[in-house]
């Protein structure tokens, strides 16, 4: 049996997007920190997962929130792919040009924290859980900020890797400590003292 040609898949996905029949679009991206699954909803990127996370589970979760009409297309997400690839290969770009859709975050508190983080902590900078809690208007909620980071559905683009424990060290990371270190090294953040 002839496999479905890649050109057919791209053409189908583009037609689906053009006709408003896609609730979400995903793409798979090879990068120095492993293969990433990137999913875009109507308003921007809503999910990025690392290769250890089962893809079918991730897509099923996304489908529950966006709708089941999920299609795959590299072309439809070309600009996001380019920005992410460039960044992960060290072009020192800022991913804040990528639109993000936080609809997978059900808690308003966690959404606020993630929005604050993305807005205020740019590449080359880091912050601490307690500091981010204060910036988001909840100075006593450092632990809850930790949970917000752990459950960040859009790692890398919403830069939870830039949030470090006030007590020193790198702390936890959903994608594992090695990836957190790799991302911080990419941004040149590890050599410099942690900013408050």
């Amino acid at each position: 049996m002839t496999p479905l040609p890649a050109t057919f898949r791209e053409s189908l996905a583009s037609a689906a997007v053009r006709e408003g029949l896609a609730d979400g679009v995903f793409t798979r991206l090879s990068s120095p920190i492993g293969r990433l699954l990137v999913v875009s909803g109507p308003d921007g990127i809503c999910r990025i997962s690392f290769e250890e996370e089962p893809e079918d589970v991730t897509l099923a979760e996304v489908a529950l929130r966006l709708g089941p009409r999920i299609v795959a297309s590299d072309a439809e997400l070309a600009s996001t792919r380019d920005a992410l690839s460039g960044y992960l290969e060290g072009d020192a770009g800022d991913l804040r040009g990528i639109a993000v859709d936080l609809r997978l975050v059900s808690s308003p508190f966690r959404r606020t924290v993630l929005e604050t983080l993305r807005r205020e902590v740019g590449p080359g900078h880091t912050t601490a859980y307690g500091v981010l809690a204060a910036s988001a208007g909840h100075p006593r909620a450092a632990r809850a900020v930790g949970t917000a980071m752990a459950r960040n559905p859009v790692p890398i683009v919403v830069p939870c890797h830039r949030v470090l424990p006030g007590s020193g060290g790198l702390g936890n990371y959903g994608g594992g400590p090695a990836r957190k270190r790799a991302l911080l090294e990419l941004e040149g953040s590890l050599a410099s003292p942690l900013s408050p």
Partner: protein
Amino acid sequence: MATVVLPPFWSLVELHGDELLAHARRLAGDGDAEDILQEAFLRALRAYPRLRHADHLRAWLYRVTTTTAYDAHRSRRRERPTAKPPAVTVEPEHYDGAFEALIEPLPESAQVALRLRFIEDLDYDGVAAALGCSSVAARQRVSTAVRSLRKQVAA
């Protein structure tokens, strides 16, 4: 009513796309198969959120592909009555349209069953796959359709 949890649509494309392309080739020939299958997937996408259950999705896609191929075939015939003969699997060379005229008064479901069995020349397992039913049910549908056709011809 319980909420229907449908799998992400693309998982169906990745799981069944290869065999559906083969099915479209059998129905429409190599030249048109990809166009037919793309249209079938787009039709399926339009209907997908309204499906009332998530059972038999593979059979459903076979059915949508079959219907799309026949619709394309019919509209081509309307547009270009003297155009090139359609793909051999849909209509053998000696086919002259008499069969379509004969089955035209029957319900659409009977027409589809008869085309799958006698024009497309599928065995009952093939008809079952295209209709999304069991082989026994496919045999029954075809034989019911043949009975209706006999009555129709005798009338």
